[in-house]
């Protein structure tokens, strides 16, 4: 894939992996739009990276997606790359009742539904422009991190959906890429242990991804993602147990007298969900 001269939209692009890719794509000579749910982060992006277009949008809200699509069609009709990167990651204890059944599905809304809806809302721009869709899933699509069961499930869902999307859009000339990062050092992973699984920096992820995209790869497994992939095929029980062992201490304990789970034992910095 040739990497300059495009107009690229990155959801969840005001921090972490999304922002790292945004900056790299600008450097390579592309028009880049980032969206995010947190206005403070977007304002920061506008000040620090004035070349980026920053638009407020929440991928877990269908109305917000519709409004974004209308604005994009008006302002950036040449849009030809959509990177569905917005993601939410929460450690959960499935043995306790959730205090909030709606919040329980938060990662589904952002990670799965956000990706599906954004793709649908912009396909009538991407397809005529013979563009590219990049869905960010995760190594955990193959083997779940048991302490983040819904996040992991959402990534498995994205893997299946992206595979179908690739076949469906082949005749339309739209390239569909799946990016499967390992553990990456960002706000979202802050506070996670660095023991069994090495964290890579966003720079390393971006560099490896750019190289893979230039080589025309459609499923991009970076670093330890490859190992997780192979282990999931060769010895799934072993690798499943390994991740269970490595993450069970991170599962939230009961916090109050009702025994209900307080959903996040992750770091105080909230994830960028859109």
């Amino acid at each position, binding site marked *: 894939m040739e990497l300059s001269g495009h107009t690229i939209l990155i959801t969840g692009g005001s921090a972490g992996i999304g922002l790292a890719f945004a900056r790299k794509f600008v450097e390579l000579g592309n028009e880049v739009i980032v969206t995010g749910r947190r206005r403070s982060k977007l*304002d920061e992006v*506008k*000040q620090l990276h*004035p*070349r980026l*277009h920053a638009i407020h949008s929440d991928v877990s809200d269908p109305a917000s997606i519709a*409004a974004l699509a*209308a604005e994009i*069609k*008006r302002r950036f009709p040449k849009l030809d790359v959509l990177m569905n990167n917005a993601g939410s990651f929460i450690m959960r204890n499935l043995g306790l009742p959730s205090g909030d059944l709606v919040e329980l599905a938060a990662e589904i809304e952002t990670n799965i539904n956000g990706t599906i809806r954004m793709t649908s809302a912009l396909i009538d721009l991407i397809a005529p422009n013979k563009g590219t869709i990049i869905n960010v899933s995760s190594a955990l699509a193959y083997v779940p991190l048991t302490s983040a069961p819904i996040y992991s499930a959402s990534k498995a869902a994205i893997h299946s959906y992206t595979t179908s999307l690739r076949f469906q859009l082949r005749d339309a000339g739209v390239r569909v890429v799946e990016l499967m990062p390992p553990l990456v050092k960002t706000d979202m992973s802050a506070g996670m242990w660095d023991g069994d699984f090495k964290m890579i920096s966003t720079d390393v992820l971006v560099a490896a991804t750019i190289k893979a995209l230039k080589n025309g790869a459609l499923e991009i497994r970076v670093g330890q993602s490859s190992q997780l992939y192979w282990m999931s095929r060769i010895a799934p029980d072993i690798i499943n147990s390994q991740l269970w062992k490595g993450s069970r201490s991170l599962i939230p304990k009961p916090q109050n007298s009702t025994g209900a789970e307080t959903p996040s034992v992750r770091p105080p910095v909230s994830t960028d969900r859109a």
Partner: protein
Amino acid sequence: MMLKDKVAVIYGAGGAIGAAIAHAFAREGARLFLTGRHRAPIDALTKEVTSAEAAEVDALDEQAVDRHLQSVIDKTGRIDISFNAVGIPNTKIQGVPLVDLDAEQFILPIATYARSYFLTARLAARRMSANKSGVIMTVTSVPARTGIPLVGGLGPAMSAVEQITRNLSVELAPKGIRVVGLRPQGMPESSTIREVFELHARAHGISWDQFHGMIASRTHTGRLTTLEEMANAAVFMASDKASAMTGTAVNLSMGSLDD
């Protein structure tokens, strides 16, 4: 809602400022009539905001502006706000020293900005007089008030716009019509300013980011005005709460320009 049921006509609604104003005015309850020379972006904008109609109108064409205003009156019976966000491309206008600048390119912005503002404003004023109320608004910019290199005829064009504002105001305010300008610092959220910064950066032999940093460093806040901030000020200035302000340009320069 600060602009509930106000009828607002926006010229240049296809541009970044026009669109930002449209969004803000619609949020505050205004009924919008969006115009511009290119239909596509304005049609698209009507899908994003409630209560907006689009029309292709060239602000330099007096008959076209007048016909359109009449159609608005026919539909709503009034015009409360006329917002001039007309702009022209800067490619040949900026980035060249005055000693080298093509004479036609020098005059072009002066003639275009003065004429489009004059025509749209006075035609709106005729309708607003009937109701003894209304607000005429325009965009101006920092080069109106201070010497900046390589802006070509844009500096005098903006000065003209600000003086037209004062003269319109002194004639129209007795009829209940206020006339005000909004003067932001350069807003790189707009493609116009992105291009302008590129022209200036190249002329200075520095990068776009370096030029942006240079301009931003002159503000008190260390950053430039955003479209949303300009739109928020526009809402206030269009509302009845700004009744004390007329014949003036609102300083949105983040402190980089003294009053």
